[in-house]
């Protein structure tokens, strides 16, 4: 039987019995003005178990960095178990966790509208970065949905199949959002040089074939540690705080925050 993402998504998120550390309504009660929301679209298929583990850990890292984070999850059948089983917040050591926002959208445009609506809901804990799971089959030209794909984040390995899939995904993203500024995080490598070569291959293809630059969001290491930590429902930075996996994850979160927030204001950079 084929293994579906929905079979394992619940591993990546806290159980019902966990006590929310920061209830959503309480956090919203601290509002002091409209802060905005910047979606970071992460295209996923039902088999993308590893990227979902990455996204969950990254959302927590963004939150740990004192940034408000929302993990936006659409109403796709493959994600349904997630919607039904999750509490709205998760608990992390030393601070609040990211919120989970469940959208009833069933296509890209509707999800983008929900993201905009979410951005109008003010939060009192600083700027909001919103890693957003986007089913890849939703990625198609849609005037309402283009804004959601402005800052997509992709995960790629040095494998030829992964490079092909990433390239194809980039083509679809640019068809749907011609002004997108995609970024790639490399994983499944044994050295920084290998990660750099992999990124350079993708970047040069993107520039030569699609005429657009590709942003680097670093590399993630030791996928198995991240996956295991997710299965245990503990972020890898808590389960293995001194590991390279944790340091790499923190570094990727830093790049995401630095690229998408205004250092002077501390606010997300508005989508163009």
């Amino acid at each position, binding site marked *: 039987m084929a293994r579906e993402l929905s079979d394992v998504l619940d591993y990546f998120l806290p159980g019902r019995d966990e006590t929310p550390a920061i209830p959503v309504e309480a956090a919203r009660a601290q509002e002091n003005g409209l802060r905005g929301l910047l979606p970071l679209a992460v295209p996923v298929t039902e088999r993308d178990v590893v990227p979902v583990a990455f996204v969950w850990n990254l959302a927590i890292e963004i939150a740990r960095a004192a940034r408000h984070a929302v993990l936006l999850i659409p109403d796709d059948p493959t994600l349904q178990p997630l919607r039904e089983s999750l509490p709205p917040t998760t608990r992390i050591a030393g601070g609040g966790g990211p919120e989970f926002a469940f959208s009833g959208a069933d296509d890209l445009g509707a999800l983008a509208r929900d993201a905009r609506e979410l951005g109008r809901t003010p939060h009192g804990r600083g700027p909001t970065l919103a890693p957003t799971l986007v089913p890849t089959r939703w990625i198609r030209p849609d005037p309402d949905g283009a804004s959601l794909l402005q800052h997509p984040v992709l995960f790629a390995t040095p494998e030829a199949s992964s490079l*092909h899939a990433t390239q194809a995904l980039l083509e679809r993203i640019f068809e749907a959002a011609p002004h997108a500024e995609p970024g790639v995080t490399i994983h499944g490598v044994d050295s920084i040089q290998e990660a750099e*070569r992999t990124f350079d291959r993708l970047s040069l293809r993107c520039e030569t074939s699609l005429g657009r630059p590709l942003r680097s969001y670093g590399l993630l290491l030791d996928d198995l540690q991240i996956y295991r930590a997710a299965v245990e429902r503990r972020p890898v930075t808590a389960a293995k705080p001194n590991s390279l996996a944790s340091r790499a994850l923190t570094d990727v979160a830093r790049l995401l925050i630095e690229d998408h927030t205004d250092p002077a204001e501390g606010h997300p950079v508005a989508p163009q």
Partner: protein
Amino acid sequence: MRPIVAGRVAQLRRAEILECLEGLLGASPEPLRLIVRDVQGLGGPIDAVACDATGTPVLIGIATPDGAADPLGSLLAQRAWLAPRIRDWLQLNPQLPFRPDVRPRMLLLAGQWEAATLAAAAEIGVELGRLRALETVEGTVVGLETPPERASSATERPPLERASFGPERTPPEAPPPEPATPPLARPDSGFRTGLRAEDLDSPSRPRSAPRGR
């Protein structure tokens, strides 16, 4: 050759067998590559997962007095748990030698077998390996033997297993050919990371997944 002064089946504990499992599997008539040992499975630990020369995962159970009460049943349950996760593992580490869509084999290791165990194992397609512990002047030496019942067909799969479990083995899909690629390195690389190369070169760093074990 080390002088063997006495030989007997010792009451080895699970931890002791796990400790020397990599060497045992590598030296068996049909060498197996140990991928991971003592990993959490369905409701308890899986003793080990290895890979054979064809890329087929091999789920390994160890029957010891301190192990599972029903090792055959436990092995079946763990295979049901493991089989759909092989693809996940391959996503986590594409360099793992497993072939996707191949039903894992089951191998049960023990010091001795009862006739009922032999019959049950043959019926459900579990392969057996016999552990031998020999006392030598240098200490205890552990060996792995194929039980006499299967010695003539160590590499054959029980017909029942083929009929009962999963699809026929098929060659893995070849990855699509990579298109013409740009130069490997660029002087103006936009790659960014706060990590240092020496961080990754540390011999103590765990790999993405156990390899070459």
